[in-house]
C-alpha cells in the first residue's frame, strides 16, 4: 500500500505541470462554486431579514403588499427589487452594500425612532438608484413593451400611455408600493420635482 502511494508520488513529480493544472482546475471549480453559493446565500429574503433592522420595519410593511402575497403566488422578494440581476451591476451593488455593515455596527437605524428619522433619506437614495437605471428591477418582470393596455384598469390605461410618452419610468409614480411612503414634507422644491411629487 505504501509502495503504491510512493509510486503515485513519483508519477506526480514526473508530471508536475499536469498536476498543477489539474489541481488548479478543480480548486478553481470549488472556489468559484463556493463564492457563488455564498453570494446567492446573501441574496435571499431570509438573509435580508436576519437583521432586526430589516425584519421589524421594512419587512413588516412589505408583508401587506401585492409583491408578498397575491392571487397567483408569484413573489418578488427583497433582492428582486434591490439587487440587479446581471453579474457586473450585482457585484457593484454588493460591494456598495458593505456600507450597510458599517451602519449596522454604528446602530444608525437600530430603533424604530432612528429608522423613522432616516426613512426619507433611505427612500430617496433608493428612488435615485431606480431612476438612474430606468427602474430596471421593475422591468425585469414588468416589461413595458409587453403591457396590454386594454387589460388594465380604467384609470391605469391613460396614465400609463401618457407616462411612457413623457419618458417617465416606473418609480416616478409607483413609490411606496412595497414599503410605507415616507413623509415628503422635508424635501426641497427641486427634489420634489426630481421625484415627480406634487
Amino acid at each position, binding site marked *: 500500500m505504501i509502495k503504491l502511494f510512493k509510486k503515485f508520488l513519483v508519477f506526480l513529480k514526473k508530471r508536475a505541470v499536469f498536476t498543477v493544472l489539474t489541481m488548479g482546475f478543480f480548486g478553481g471549480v470549488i472556489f468559484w462554486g463556493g463564492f457563488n453559493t455564498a453570494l446567492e446565500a446573501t441574496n435571499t429574503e431570509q438573509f435580508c431579514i436576519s437583521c432586526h433592522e430589516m425584519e421589524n420595519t421594512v419587512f413588516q410593511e412589505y408583508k*401587506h403588499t401585492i409583491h408578498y402575497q397575491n392571487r397567483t403566488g408569484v413573489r418578488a422578494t427583497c433582492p428582486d427589487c434591490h439587487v440587479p440581476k446581471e453579474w457586473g451591476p450585482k457585484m457593484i451593488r454588493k460591494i456598495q452594500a458593505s456600507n450597510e455593515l458599517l451602519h449596522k455596527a454604528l446602530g444608525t437605524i437600530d430603533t424604530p425612532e432612528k429608522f423613522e428619522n432616516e426613512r426619507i433619506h433611505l427612500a430617496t437614495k433608493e428612488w435615485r438608484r431606480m431612476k438612474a437605471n430606468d427602474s430596471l428591477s421593475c422591468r425585469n418582470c414588468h416589461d413595458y413593451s409587453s403591457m396590454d393596455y386594454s387589460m388594465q384598469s380604467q384609470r391605469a390605461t391613460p396614465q400609463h400611455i401618457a407616462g411612457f410618452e413623457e419618458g417617465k419610468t416606473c418609480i416616478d409614480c409607483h413609490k411606496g408600493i412595497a414599503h*410605507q*411612503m415616507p413623509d415628503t414634507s422635508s424635501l426641497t422644491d427641486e427634489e420634489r420635482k426630481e421625484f415627480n411629487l406634487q
Partner: protein
Amino acid sequence: MKNSKKLVLKYVNLALGAGLLMLSINSYAETKEAATSDVAEVQKELNAQTPSATNEATDSVSASSEVKSSAPEFHDFGFKGVRSLRGETGIVAPDKSASIKRLQPDIDPIARNYFQQPPMIPHRTRGYQITVRHNKCMTCHGWDTYKKARATKVSQTHFADRDGNAQSTLAARRYFCTQCHAPQVDAKPLVENKFDPVHELQK
C-alpha cells in the same frame, strides 16, 4: 525507512480525521432522530386525544338530528319556526363559511342614495396607504392633482376642524378617507330594501 514512517504517520492522521468526521456526522444524525421522535410522540399524544374529540362531535351531531326530527311536529301546524340569518344550520353545528366577496374593478362614479352620503369609492384601493406620513388618496383627489388625474376633488368641508375653523391642510377628523368612503364588493343585499332616493338623486 524514515520516509515510510512519515507516510505511516500521515495515514494515521488521515484515519483520525476521517473518524472524527464520521463521529460528528453520527452525532448530528442522532440529534435529528431525537427531534423527529419528539414530533412523533407529540403526534401520538394528539391521536390519543382526538377520539374523545370525535365523540363529542358525534354527540353534537346526534343532538342536531334530534332537533331536526322534532321539526315535522311544527310543520303539521303549518308553522316553520323562526328562521334566523344563519339559515337551517343547527345551533350546535358550525356555521357555514360565507362566500368571499370580490372587490370590483374600476367603474364610473357610483350614484349617491341620499344627499349626506359620503360618495363610495368606484375603484380598488389595495395598497393605498393612509398613514401619518402620507395619504395616497390625495395624490389624485387633492386640489392640486385632481384635474390631471381626472378625479373627484376632496370636498372643502374636509378642511374645517370640528369648530368650523378653515385649515390649509386636511382636518385631522377628515384625514382617514376610508372611515367614510369605502370600496364596493359584488355583494347582493341580504334582505330586500325598498328605499328610494329622493327625486333629485334619481335622475
